[in-house]
């Protein structure tokens, strides 16, 4: 037992001086820092935002409603010229203009990349609502008729677990998988390195003249594990 402990201690001390071990310790921090930096950079930069240009006072689209739809928009550009300059300098992803022509809402997006489906749906929802108001005004229907026309189907959603709990669970699973993957790859690499260096030498013969192979094996495995 004493000799197993000596092997464990020696190998452990040798491991903590190795590059593999330093990588094992520092890598999660490095990954964490890289992740934080990435998110920070993503949040702080404007170039993922879409500028909303209000050409008229009662424009069909406004940044408040767009943000409610989950679209990252900014209203700091007052006109198309300013927005065009910002787009050219890659400060924004694109800009949106909306106007009403012959009782029809016309929305235009100019940008460096496509809008994704949720963004398109969000813009359509807002523009659609505005268009509906215009349509109702045009058709001159009474309140009763309007009520009938605007009747909606009933849709209820019942969720057993809260979405908050399930997302925590999901994140925990991801972290666990990552940690397990990292430990396994590092453990395998350290073990392979150790076997390769010892197979190529006769140090084992000297050690086995002092203790049983199985005790040495236990010490070695535990040292790598710790």
């Amino acid at each position, binding site marked *: 037992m004493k000799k197993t402990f000596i092997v464990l201690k020696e190998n452990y001390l*040798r491991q903590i*001086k190795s590059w593999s071990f330093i990588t094992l310790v520092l890598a999660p921090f490095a990954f964490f820092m890289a992740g934080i930096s990435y998110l920070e950079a993503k949040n702080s930069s404007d170039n993922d935002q879409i500028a909303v240009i209000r050409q008229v006072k009662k424009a069909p689209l406004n940044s408040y409603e767009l943000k409610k739809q989950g679209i990252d928009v900014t209203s700091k550009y007052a006109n198309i010229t300013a927005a065009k300059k910002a787009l050219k300098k890659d400060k924004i992803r694109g800009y949106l203009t909306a106007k009403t022509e012959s009782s029809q809402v016309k929305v235009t997006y100019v940008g460096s990349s496509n809008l994704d489906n949720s963004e398109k749906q969000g813009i359509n929802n807002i523009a659609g609502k505005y268009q509906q108001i215009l349509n109702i005004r045009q058709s001159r229907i009474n309140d009763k008729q309007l009520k009938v026309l605007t009747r909606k189907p009933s849709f209820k959603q019942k969720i057993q677990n809260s979405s908050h709990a399930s997302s925590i669970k999901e994140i925990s699973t991801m972290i666990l998988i990552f940690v397990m993957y990292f430990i396994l790859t590092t453990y395998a690499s350290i073990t392979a390195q150790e076997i390769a260096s010892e197979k190529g*030498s*006769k*140090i084992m013969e*000297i*050690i086995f003249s002092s203790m049983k192979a199985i005790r040495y094996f236990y010490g070695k495995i535990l040292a790598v594990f710790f």
Partner: protein
Amino acid sequence: MLKIDHLSKSFGAKKVLSDVNFEVPNGKILGIIGKNGAGKTTTFHSILNFITFTGTILWNGEPLTEKDYDQIGYLPEERSLIQKLTVKEQVRYLANLKNMSTKEIYQKLPVWMDKLKVKGNLNDKISSLSKGNQQKVQLICTLIHQPSLIILDEPFSGLDPINVDILRNTILEEKKRGAAIIFSDHDMNNVESLCDSIVLLKDGYAVINGNLHDVRSSFGNTNIFVEAELAISRLKELPHVLSVIEEKDGLYKLTISDEKYGPEIFDQLTHGQYIKVFAQQPPTLTDIFKKEA
């Protein structure tokens, strides 16, 4: 005392050791000689319990157990230390495994470094030492715990003549201390100068086994050294002479078929001829090795 009885070992169908017997009393040195693949290292591995075998190996009358490992000092054929460690760390690790306290190791280590004239400091990395100095550090690891049984597998290989002398003296000191020593070597001069007894292995069989002096004598005084101003052709023409080798200028070594022909050859050579040296001796270990191995 180490006693080996009927030691046999096979690897599959190949028999590597067959009924090998020998013993090494405390304070004696046994040399195991033989050609490459004769079974020398397998014998060592059997003693150290690295491999299974048939027969018995007794240490002081008892089979070797894990407890006895602390009394063994083993130097393998290929030198190998952990290159990343310092001299101090390496010796401490291996000596700790022999149940030696760290305090005692640190006390003895400088003495051994000095004794073996290792060029380097205790805090030098093994990788920074020369091959010869690494070999000396490995020898320190083998001997620092004062083992009772020392097994050295070709300890002289790769050493220069000065270091061979240092190692030879160290082995003799260990013998004087009372350790039973077994070693193998291909240089018969080392074997002859150190060993009390020898075992010559041939294809796993111990073809010669016994006291070195007795072994040599058993071959008879069949070597004659002659120093005279003679033509080699004349020596070759002498009766019962099997071979003539000119060792150096004017010194010849004659091998005769039987020691009884020595006086007859002496008569023939001295007949009207001045001879500086005429010495009849048993064959050297090298001669025996060449003949028997």
